[in-house]
């Protein structure tokens, strides 16, 4: 297992504040953080770089998180099986099940506290405590 500081996380969220909030927590925990503003940008990033975890918002302009996940899992890219954490303000059962059908590994409802975020990231990336 590699060290935590080499893990790369891609935050996909259209809200700059949310990205900054996540980024700060993750960088403090030793992650390398990249950002995408919507699903389309995320697809581009995923084609070019490799990540250990994607943190994906649902409601975004141009391409929403669910469409992005579906595309990611369907396209048979090198990154298609990357762990994904979906964060959304929607708490409806429909929202959770559609995220899972699209291939989300875990679903959390915003706001997500920084310590909860890093704990989840450590888990999903297999960081040895």
């Amino acid at each position, binding site marked *: *297992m590699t060290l935590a500081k080499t893990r790369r996380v891609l935050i996909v969220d*259209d*809200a*700059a*504040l*949310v990205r*900054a*909030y996540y980024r700060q*927590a993750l960088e*403090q925990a030793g992650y390398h953080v990249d950002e995408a503003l919507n699903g389309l940008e995320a697809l581009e990033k995923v084609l070019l770089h490799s990540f250990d975890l994607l943190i994906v918002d649902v*409601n975004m*302009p141009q391409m929403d998180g669910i469409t992005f996940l*579906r595309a*990611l*899992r*369907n396209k*048979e890219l090198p990154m*298609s*099986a*990357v*762990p*994904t954490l979906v964060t959304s*303000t929607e*708490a*409806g*059962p*429909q929202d*959770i*099940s559609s995220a*899972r*059908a*699209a*291939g*989300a*590994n*875990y*679903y*959390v*409802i*915003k*706001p*997500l*506290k*920084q*310590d*909860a975020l*890093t*704990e*989840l990231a*450590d*888990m*999903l*990336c*297999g*960081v*040895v*405590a």
Partner: protein
Amino acid sequence: MNEFVEQFLLEARELIEQATGDLLALEQRANDPDKIDSAFRAFHTLKGAAGIVEFEPMARALHAVEGVLSGFRSKARPISPAIIDECLACLDQVTRWLDDMAATGELPSGADPVADAIVQRFSTSDSDASTLPVGDWLERLSAGNPGRFSEARSALRYVPHADAFFRGEDPLALIEGLRGLISIDLTLPDPAQPFDAVNPFTCAVEIIALINEDAETVKRLLSEVSDQIEVHAIDAKPQAVSDLVLSPLARSVLEAQILLLREPGPNGRAARAASAGLVSINVLHHAGLASAANSIAGALNDADATSVITAIERALQRKTDNVSSERSETARTASPAAARVLRVDTARIDTLVNLTGELTVVKNALGHLAKQAQDGLDAKGVTASLRNLQTQLDRLVGEIQGAILRIRVLPMRQMFQRFPRPVREISASVSKSIQFVIEGDDTEADTAIVESLFEPLLHVLRNAIDHGIEDSAQRMASGKPSTATIVLRAFRELDNVIVEVEDDGGGVDVDRVREVAAARGLVAADTLAGMTEADVIDLIFASGFSTAREVTDLSGRGVGMDAVRTAVGRLGGRVSIASRPKIGTVIRLTLPFTVMMTHVMTVEAAGQVFGLPLDVIVETAMIPRNLIVPIGAAAAFTWRDRTVPLVSLAASLGLSSYIADVGQARVVVTSTGGQLGAIEVERLGGRMDVMLKPMDGLLGGMKGVAGTTLLGDGRVLIVLDVQELFN
């Protein structure tokens, strides 16, 4: 409060502007899907932002609005004006909260009842969620309480009988009274049900709760409703949570992977399964269960989902003596009260970085040259290199100065987008129908201008609506459309930024202005009689002038257009007015692009040095005297096929000219407000960049002077206001 508050305030205000703009657009076109979408997104993002700064009441209020907007988004049903009003009112409340936060640096107190009231108003048409499938309530619970799930020892789902109220049961009180209750969530089984169809006498609610008490105890405590509850032990064994190597969160994540593996859809199945396997392995590694992780890895190689599921389930059942460690709270330092924040395009920062790089090159070259001089390079060589370096430095410093000034530059949009709302309200309050058009809002200007022009412009707009636009009966009578148009536009003209407010109203009533000016004694009666129409119109800028026949709520507040002129003047700008009866009025604000630096050219007249702002200078020329024709008391000449009036600088300043009657006149051709003019001077000097200081104190009212600055030798350089020279 946390350190993201500053960014929150900044973004929240932008989102409010966006939402306001979209809502106002929806008022015009109620079913524009793009606008509904955009408004929804703004509320949605605003809600998320409120969550990050832990301002729960605001998030709750916005969630309610978002729910309603989302309904319009999916149904393509036009949004009603009443709802737009409610949404705007909610934004107003949020703005008040933000102001409060900006002022005190803390979350507003007493926000809860206000938020409740907003939620109440929006609750009748809430949410587009559909019926709840039962099986996943545990997952909803864990997803909804990611942090607290780990504290809980059991999870509870309680669906009371429909006739619970008649059986003397109080489901909510029952659960709220439970020992060790951590969280409680209420869900309507069918939120899509119209409000009218809800029977208030039946109990239709699903309660899910997290409880820090083992499942057996919970079941015992709730024995009276045992047929209606479902209790799930989060901690499968009756021991304390710490006895398990897998934290409840880890279990929840692993359980989610099992569900993902069971997901039936054929598309992307391989990738889903692979990611579920990878996540399971990672979670187990994280928990220190390497062997369990390896067994999943082995099952993954078989590429069989069921064997992976079995491996995960086996891991879920294992326990060891290891204790899962609690993560220590990350200490967060509160940020000090926010100073002013400026948003800067990163490209502009990059320019600065590049220029700094170039500057370093020059610095190094200087060091190299110093060494060469030490080693005996001849004076001539040193001089040449020095001059070369000086030229480079000169260019670089100029560019850095420019780049820094551009950092201070903002698009007018930031200010302009605040206007549609007040314009809408003002026009509604005087019952005038107005189409408000914004043009050139991407025009850029100095931050100081963009930030301090709001009030003056609002006053101009208020005036236009209140006095400029006639009432609809009058408009019909003069053959105009009953809806009036007011245009707010900005554009660049040389080094100036022009902001105009144009209305298609009745124009300034010149006779009325004369009457008022006479009645108020602003101008002596005989002077008034001799004034041109333009001069009379200009009187509306005089202090103490107000033409409203009755003092209205809007513009008759004693501050008139003179306040506008003062405010604009403070920014180094000028206000002018053009009015045509029955056609309309244009108020024009001419502002400098930057307020920091002024480029001037020095000229000499009557032996004294004066500065002329370089931004009004078009060209310098020598004009043969025989081509200058006297016109009345003044003179003019033809220049590039245009007739240009000529004034002598010495004469217009009341100084005696030293000019001998030489054959040619040295002139500076200027352009102000689109008008060409020429100034005769005795000598032309160089150009320089100065910080202009406006005249103040006793000299404050002096006409014809734009400001002063100090020359290198300590003399005062008076920079002239060219427009005034020609008046």
